[in-house]
């Protein structure tokens, strides 16, 4: 199921990932998607660009682990996680989580849990380009 958890430099297609997740079962009645995008403003600073660095082997392990734990602990049918690395333009998508279940409450809970867990446990770092130069973001909201 490695194609359901990917870390990539390239842009991703939300529709394509949803299709991949939905192909798991015709019993899927609810799909909840979280999409993180590059904002132009953060903590009072104008942001002109972003770049992400990651610890490749560990980040992939941690994202796969989030998917496994989501499937174990929530009543969902399938989950996909995609995170981009490298430079990302303002407005572009950074991260995608797709959770699919029979009923909507399970997909909402699993999706929200997964993005929170990703921010907490995945070794990925954001570098923002502001008018003052490039800075590593050291806090995760």
């Amino acid at each position, binding site marked *: 199921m490695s194609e359901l958890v990917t870390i990539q430099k390239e842009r991703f297609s939300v529709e394509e990932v949803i299709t991949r997740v939905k192909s798991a079962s015709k019993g899927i009645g609810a799909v909840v998607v979280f999409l*993180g995008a590059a904002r132009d403003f953060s903590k009072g600073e104008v942001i002109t660009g972003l770049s*992400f*660095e*990651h*610890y490749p*082997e*560990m*980040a992939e*392990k941690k994202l796969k682990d989030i998917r496994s734990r989501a499937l174990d602990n929530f009543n969902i049918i399938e989950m996909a996680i995609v*995170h981009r690395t490298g430079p990302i333009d303002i407005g572009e998508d*950074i*991260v995608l989580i797709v959770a699919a279940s029979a009923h909507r409450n399970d997909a909402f809970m699993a999706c929200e849990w997964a*993005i929170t867990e*990703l*921010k*907490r*446990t*995945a*070794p*990925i*770092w*954001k*570098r923002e380009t502001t008018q003052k130069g490039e800075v*590593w*973001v*050291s*806090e*995760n909201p």
Partner: protein
Amino acid sequence: MIKVRFFAMLKGLAGTETKEYAVAAPISIESLKELIKKDFPSLSQIIDSRSLLISVNQEFASKETLVKDGDEVGFLPPFSGG
């Protein structure tokens, strides 16, 4: 050898991505931190802060974790993915 990997701001402060240490016997994370602070004084402040996480072979380590020959240790500043 123990292979230490620095990420994000630590990499910039250390001026390198990796550093290797030869050890005769397993050592504690705390001992490894002391070695690194000696070699990279610019990392001392972050290493002493609570926000630094340490991984051993791609899993989170605790203070009790021992590091041995062949291990890969990550020095991980606070995450900001997502």
